[in-house]
């Protein structure tokens, strides 16, 4: 399945542009005068986030009954009020930073997002959330399609993927997105020094600037080489970024630091992809103990997002950015025999940013085990979707990226109650 979904590229990769668009630098002056760019940070929770432990319906008696070891005690959640169905909700106790952001009105949760007959497979699930197409999960990523829709020539740094390999969500037909795990390590080495090294680098760039004809598979590698060599200097400026505060040393913390650096340096990037993994908590999920598995996941998330939020705020860049999370599925409501949770269905998404209208969107599931409970499915085992995830995407596409969601998603998923942006 993994291989076949890549067949879409066959024959389609020969059209790399070899000239670079001038990066859209936004000068400090222009910024002071109110010019803003709009950056999207797509945040993937790898493994299937148990969002019931992140956004907790702590007063639902079935929550406690069905999770004898995993339930967060009501007294420990960070209360954030009730949703429109009057269900009291609280954040996981480790999310103190997100609570601050929520209180500042810049964090939104959308509850019970998913799609009909949600897949419980990690890989199929990621494909569907990435393509935004449950019927053809082998297509291009929705962010990739957005990048493809931009007028050419597109800057080779228009996107920045902070992971090692291209995620499906960024797969595009003609817009390669560089993977830059660390701006510090993004340099061209040489076995020689001085002029000889410069000759090598120039030769490598000239080789890569050529476009092989009728060899699309080889052309793909050429495009990747060119994108690497053509972006080295601008990425080097990000490596020199001095943030206004210290970021956590976690992978997510460092990725968010690079995103803030790219924004600060104005290198022209508009879409970032960051990820934090470990959410496939089948066993020893340990929501409550300090340094428990899920507790640590929340710590990583909280500390990285809070640092990012405050760093941008300190620099007046907060209004330029929107963070949108997704995960392939939520998890089973009842805990399993391993003090963990198995693959489930709908879950909550998170949206954060300087122009976000924060709050709780959608309604919490009622966790009553009655098989006819309309907020649940799978014999009341899993959370039933209330909001199609594409409606959340549509709001971001229309309201933030400024492009037509109907066209990009191949259908009208707009939902007026989701006015978080």
């Amino acid at each position, binding site marked *: *399945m*993994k*291989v*076949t979904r*890549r*067949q879409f590229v*066959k024959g389609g990769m020969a059209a790399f542009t070899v000239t670079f668009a001038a990066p859209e630098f936004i000068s400090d002056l222009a910024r002071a005068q109110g010019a803003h760019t709009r950056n999207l940070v797509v945040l993937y929770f*790898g*493994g299937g986030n148990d969002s019931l432990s992140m956004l907790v319906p702590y007063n639902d008696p079935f929550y406690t009954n069905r999770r004898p070891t995993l339930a967060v005690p009501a007294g420990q959640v960070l209360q954030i009020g009730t949703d429109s169905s009057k269900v009291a909700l609280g954040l996981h106790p480790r999310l103190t930073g997100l609570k601050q952001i929520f209180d500042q009105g810049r964090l939104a949760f959308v509850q019970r997002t998913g799609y009909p007959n949600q897949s*419980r*497979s*990690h*890989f*199929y699930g990621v494909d569907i959330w990435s393509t935004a197409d449950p019927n053809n999960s082998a297509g291009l990523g929705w962010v990739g399609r957005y990048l493809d829709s931009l007028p050419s020539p597109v800057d080779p740094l228009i996107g920045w*993927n902070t992971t*090692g*390999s*291209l995620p499906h969500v960024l797969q595009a037909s003609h817009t*390669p*997105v*560089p*993977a*830059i*795990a660390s701006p510090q*390590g*993004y*340099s*061209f*080495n*040489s*076995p*020689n020094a001085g*002029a*000889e090294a410069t*000759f*090598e680098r120039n*030769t*490598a760039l*000239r*080789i890569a600037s*050529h476009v092989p004809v009728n060899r699309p*598979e*080889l052309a*793909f*590698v*050429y495009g*990747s*080489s060119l*994108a*690497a060599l053509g*972006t080295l200097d601008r990425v080097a400026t990000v490596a020199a970024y001095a943030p206004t505060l210290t970021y956590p040393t976690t992978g997510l913390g460092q990725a968010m630091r690079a995103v803030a650096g790219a924004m600060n340096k104005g290198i022209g990037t508009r879409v970032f992809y960051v990820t934090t993994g470990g959410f*496939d908590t*089948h*066993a020893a999920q340990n929501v409550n103990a300090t340094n428990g598995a899920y507790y640590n996941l929340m710590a990583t998330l909280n500390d990285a997002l809070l640092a990012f939020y405050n760093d941008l705020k300190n620099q007046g860049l907060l209004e330029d950015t929107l963070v949108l999370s997704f995960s392939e599925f939520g998890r089973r409501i009842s805990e*399993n*025999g*391993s003090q*963990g949770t*198995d*693959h489930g269905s709908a879950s909550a998404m998170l949206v954060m940013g300087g122009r976000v209208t924060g709050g709780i969107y959608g309604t919490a599931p009622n966790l009553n085990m009655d098989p006819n409970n309309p907020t649940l499915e799978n014999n009341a085992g899993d959370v039933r979707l209330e909001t199609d995830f594409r409606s959340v995407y549509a709001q971001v596409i229309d309201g933030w990226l400024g492009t037509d969601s109907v066209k990009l998603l191949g259908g009208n998923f707009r939902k007026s109650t989701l006015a978080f942006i």
Partner: protein
Amino acid sequence: MAKTSDRQIEHLLRRAGFGARSDELELFREMTITQAVDVLVNYDSLVDDVDALIGRPGYAGMTINGTFSPQSNINHARQRWLFRMVHTNRPLQEKMTLFWHNHFATGYNKIAGTFGAPEGARYMAAKSSEDPGQVRGQVEMLRTNALGNFRDILLNIAKDTAMLVWLDGRTNTKAKPQENFGREIMELFSVGVGNYTEEDVYAAARVFSGWNLQRPGTLAEQHYEFSYVSSQHETSAKTFSFAVYPDGGRTIPARSAADGQQDGIDFINGLAAHPNTARYLAAKLYRFFVSEFGAVNVTFVNRIANVYLQSRYDMKAVMREVLLSPEFWDESAYYARYAWPVEFVVRALKDVGWSGFSVNDALTPLSNMGQILYEPPDVSGWDAGQNWFATGAMLARMNFASTLAGNQKFKLATAVKDAGVGKTPEAMLAYFGDQLLTAPQESTVTTELNNYLHSNGAWTGADAQLQAKASGLVHLIVGSPEYQLV
């Protein structure tokens, strides 16, 4: 006797191994294709003595602090595997082990996080002869069975200590059946996604309830191993959407707890015999050994699936058929795969030279290229093909080429002089073109490489110039797009 051309041998060894050392070329160029394939698949007739070469002069080096302990130190295990890939005389064994490691993708970190780092390395990489309790780690099990019977591999994997941790089978109990392994054994290890239902997942979880781990004590020779805990087995009947038994039966009957282990064996037998398993494996073998370009060849899949079923899952028979198949030898299959990072690194070592190079210095570059041995990103294995070529990963390949060329700088210059090709840039370019075979180069590559050799002053052929230009040229060729195809 018909001899095989070097071009064909190199194709065969790039796929069935990790490229060709000069001694391998010497050996195989005397054989016909059929003989060469038979030597590769019948590697059992060659002594498995590659580990005895570790530390000897003339071979790739390692960087070991303290005692070499691959059975308890994952860094040592990683170095050992790279060393084996470079120096083995059984290349197909290492290649198939890598195939299975990707197929049954299990990550060291979770095992180490559960039982501690030394135990993590032990259950992933220990060789039974070096472990105090004769533990055979998962990848060693796969190596032993690299061309074994698929049903046996599947059964071994279901009882493998690392797998029982990785997919949580150790906590699969009667009261709370654990779905993780039950799902993945169907989705990723056998029939493939779309060929089972959610109800099958629940049933498979119950089948494997009680397939847990036990450690009798904490002495060094004692260790976690598979244990069927009958009291934790769920004994009722399990019905699947597909045939589990040869007679078409879909229901594993209710059994007493004492006999319940047979459920899992029946189920694994059923999965091994499933026609979709045959097709799933055949398609995966096509992508790994034959071609990643274009669609999977249906004729190939049908034929290989048939060999798999006819031979009752004998991977040696299957691989012999794969390597002799017309699709494998078709002109379109040459250089029709994207080299995995370890394929790229090991082939570069074989092409450029290893003497004085520590394989430890390839581990961080490999990580930057997206591949850490014993640490696939998740249970579906590595995202191969074009996904290896994110820009940062491509840069890491170019930079590894630089590191290796720099490390071999003096030897390269000496080789150029010994071959008498240092007198002109053109002679040197032709020499390295022959040493470092790539997919057909775009004409601009030759032009630019030639320009590079002519840059920075007139050609003198002096030692300093040969060292600079030979290493620079090797850097550029090994880092070129054409060299990334195998």
